[in-house]
Structures are given as C-alpha cells and as structure tokens.
C-alpha cells in the first residue's frame, strides 16, 4: 500500500472506524462525567488528547529500555507524570476549565484509552506512527465527547457552547446523570448502524 495512505489510515481510524468511545467503549467515566456541556466535553477531549499524544510518543521511544515484567507500572508512571504536568498547566492558564473538570483531570491516569493505546499500539510501533495514533485516537475521543456534550446541552438547557438559543429551561434530566447514559446509548447504537 502507498506509504502516505497508510499513515493517514493510522491517524484517521481513531476518528470514526475505531472511535475509542463509540466503537471500543473505552474511557466511559470522563465521557459521561464531564459532558454536561459541549465546552466541557471539548476541554476534556483535548486534555486527554494531550496526554495520549505525549504518552504514545514517550512510550514508543522508551519501549526497548523497559523490561517486559514491569512495563505496565512503567507506562503508568509516564502517564501519571504527564497528567501532573497537565494539571499544573490547567491550574495556571485555564483555572475555569480546571474547576469544571475537577476530579476527572487526575482520573485521566486511569482512563483505559490512554493505557490501552500504550499497550496495543505504542509499544509495538515507531515514534511517528505512535504519535499519529495518539493524535487520531485523542481527537476521536474529543469528537465523541463534544457531540455528546452538545446534544446534552441543547436538550438540557437549550444552548450550545454557552450560546443560548431557547428561552426558558430545557429538559433538565439531560444535563443530569440519566441523560448522559441515555444519549450515549443512542449514540453507540447509531455508530453501530453507520459502521455496517
């Protein structure tokens, strides 16, 4: 196959074909927890993309140095360090986003998308491919979270990205917990249909 094409393939598969949220059903906690608005979903998605991109790059560089027996703890340390960097950056530059994402920022450490990609892709492939994979998967994650957040925000409060287009209240249940599960359920069903 044409080399350029396969590189694009690695990047783009995370967006739709192997979307981590809608197809692989990974990383559910932040997906459901922070998507009460589109902007929160986007923020969380980009934060995870940051961690995923750099963890994939670092792990693919150091993969040959780590003894096989301790590879999981080693990956977790790499990921936890990146999350700590992210935490400090967000606190410094985007305190409002840090406030609204709260507990879910440190919990990126245990997001199975990040460790899953390290284990499934970055430890077997070179730096460029791993970076592309991390970026693709991260953006796919961000895409799914933004759509979920947007749907919940539109139905729940009648606004999008904070811009209110409906007077009065929306269906408040969609902003609260049940709406998250139900909207995601339908999104997964639609993704399944589109994949066929």
């Amino acid at each position, binding site marked *: 196959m044409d080399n350029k094409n396969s590189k694009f393939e690695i990047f783009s598969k995370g967006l739709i074909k192997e979307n981590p949220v809608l197809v692989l059903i990974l990383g559910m906690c932040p997906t*459901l927890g922070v998507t009460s608005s589109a902007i929160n979903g986007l923020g969380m998605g980009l934060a995870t993309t940051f961690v995923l991109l750099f963890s994939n790059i670092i792990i693919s560089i150091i993969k040959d140095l780590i003894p096989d027996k301790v590879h999981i703890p080693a990956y*977790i340390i790499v990921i936890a360090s990146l*999350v700590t960097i992210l935490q400090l950056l967000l606190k410094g530059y985007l305190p409002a986003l840090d406030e609204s994402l709260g507990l879910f920022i440190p919990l990126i450490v245990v997001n199975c998308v990040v460790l899953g990609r390290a284990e499934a892709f970055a430890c077997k492939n070179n730096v460029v491919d791993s970076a592309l994979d991390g970026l693709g998967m991260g953006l796919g994650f961000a895409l799914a979270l933004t759509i979920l957040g947007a749907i919940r925000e539109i139905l729940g409060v009648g606004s999008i990205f904070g811009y209110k287009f409906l007077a009065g209240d929306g269906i408040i249940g969609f902003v609260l917990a*049940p709406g998250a*599960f139900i909207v995601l*359920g339908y999104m997964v069903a639609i993704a399944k249909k589109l994949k066929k």
Partner: protein
Amino acid sequence: MVEYILIIISAVFVNNIALSRFLGICPFMGVSNKVNTALGMSGAVAFVMVIATLVTFYIQKLLVSCGIDFLQTIAFILVIASLVQMVEIVLKKVSPSLYQALGVFLPLITTNCTVLGVAIDVHNLTMGVSEEPYGVGAAVIYALSNAIGYGLALTIFAGLREQLELADVPEGMKGVPVAFITAGILALAFMGFAGLFQSIA
C-alpha cells in the same frame, strides 16, 4: 454522629458513585452480566477502596509536610497499584477462600477509577455541618459507604441485565446501547433519593 450518617446516606444513595458521579463505569459495563460476578467485584472494590483510602490519607499528610503535594496523582496511583498486588499476595496466603471469590477481580481494580477517585476526593471534602476537613474516621466511612453504593448499583444493574437477556430488544440496540439506556433509567430512579437528603439535613 449526624455527620457520619449524612456521609453514609449521601454516598450510598444520593451521590451514588456509579450512577450519579460516573466513576467506575468501565467495570460497571464489563462485569455486570451476572449477579454473582457483580457481587465478587463489589467485594473486591470495597476491600481495596477502604485500605487504599486509609493508606493514601497518611501519604497525603506526608506529601503536604514535605511540600510536594503536587505529586499526589503519581504517588496515589503507585500506592494503589502496589497495594492491590500486596492485598492479592496476602489474601492468597491468609484466606484462600476469599481469594477464590475475589481473586480474578483484584488486578482489574488498579484501573478502576473509583478507588483513585475516592482517595483523592476525601482530601477535598469538608464535613457537611462543620467546615473542618475529613478526619481519618470520616475518610474511612466515606470510602466504605461509596463502596457499598457502588456494590448496590452494580448488583441491581446486573440483576436487570440478567432479565434483559430474555427480553426482545430491537436489533440495533442489542448489547451495549440498551445497557446504557437501562443504566440511564436506573440513574433516574436513584435521582429520587435527592429529596431524602434535604429532609434529613
């Protein structure tokens, strides 16, 4: 005493960790096909969560006294990961029957975000009535009641999914989608507890 009762009710019912705070959803979807597996997983989570919260409570004190509390995330995840390993080894030796019941679930718990979530959580909370931060007693009770709440949600959900196996679900909704919608309805039911908290407080 009232504070402790409030912590328990709030963590088990009102702010249920799985259905209202969305922690630990991956295993919530993954191991909830059978009631028995759900019970095993809940037991293992309760066990590790209480020990992990107790240990990390003092780790945090240590980090703060050294002025390196920004290392919280790294320190906690390492402590939890090694704790899970240790619990596994000790349990194997001390109580083989308990190990048989919980064994397969223990390794999964390292990446169960409820444990890390609760361990971090107790340092950011204050007692409802007074404004002082959680002491070690309150932290352990908080961890235990969150574990009970998680077990409760997991077991109910597993019971529902066992019934769902027999139901005639439309083709496109089979499997994960309908599980999510079931969880949504369950979360809706748990929202009913919100009023309970106000009437006590």
